[in-house]
């Protein structure tokens, strides 16, 4: 799978999901996903195993996220806080998740998101973030523990809802 179209078909959804959480906005995520493939089309695709190609793509993606955050720091966009009364519970959870992710160090956030929302294996994440697989494993676990504390309330709600569903099914 060394053609840009094949790469696009195989990876654009997972890249989009990663960008959604990494930058917190769907429009920006869409633009960044397209930017990844624009860069891919201008460069030679490494003839390597699928995991290594994923690592290469996510290295590009990670650099774009870092650039995006640097730009936001230089040119902050005015954010209109959503009305708390009209926000749905799922929007509240979404906001809390984005805030918790934003509070993480960039490398921890990226490693976690590449695993949790993009579904990359430890080796591919290690390649994308220039770490060892063992370091990825420790970092993911540590980040999970941190997020578990920060998102205790939505986690408890999800757990309760799942238990209610399983009770009903019995």
């Amino acid at each position: 799978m060394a053609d840009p179209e094949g790469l696009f078909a195989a990876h654009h959804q997972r890249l989009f999901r990663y960008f959604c959480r990494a930058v917190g906005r769907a429009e920006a995520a869409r633009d960044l996903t397209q930017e990844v493939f624009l860069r891919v089309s201008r460069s030679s695709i490494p003839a390597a195993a699928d995991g290594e190609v994923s690592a290469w793509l996510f290295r590009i993606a990670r650099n774009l996220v870092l650039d995006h955050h640097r730009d936001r720091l230089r040119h902050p966009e005015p954010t209109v806080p959503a009305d708390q009364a009209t926000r749905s519970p799922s929007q509240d959870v979404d906001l809390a998740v984005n805030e918790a992710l934003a509070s993480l160090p960039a490398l921890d956030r990226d490693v976690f998101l590449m695993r949790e929302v993009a579904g990359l294996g430890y080796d591919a994440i290690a390649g994308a973030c220039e770490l060892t697989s063992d370091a990825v494993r420790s970092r993911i676990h540590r980040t999970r523990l941190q997020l578990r504390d920060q998102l205790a309330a939505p986690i408890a709600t999800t757990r309760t809802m799942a238990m209610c569903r399983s009770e009903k099914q019995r």
Partner: protein
Amino acid sequence: MGSTHEVISAFLDDEPFDSQELADALSDPIGRALLIDLIALRRIVQPGDAVPAISAPGPMRRPAWRPAAAAAVLLLALSAGYLVGERRTVASSPDAPPPTRIVQAVPFIPTGGSR
């Protein structure tokens, strides 16, 4: 907790793990609670937005009509060049200049000279 329960993360991620280590971790109620919380965490961090229709950027596409169009343009250019050249040759060919000297051809008559 911490690294002693790292095996739970590896198990959750479908990565290689030591089964005895996992059994030990899950025999502890804290480990079991952690597993459930991490599954819930995985659920809530999934982005809610459906993946929009993202098209592959332009430069990646190489339309099939491009080579045909290039060949057609080349053929047109060659034909046009040939026609223009031919017309110019016919239209601008000048008359032959008048002769400046006329040489009369004298028939050769052998005189029976020396051998």
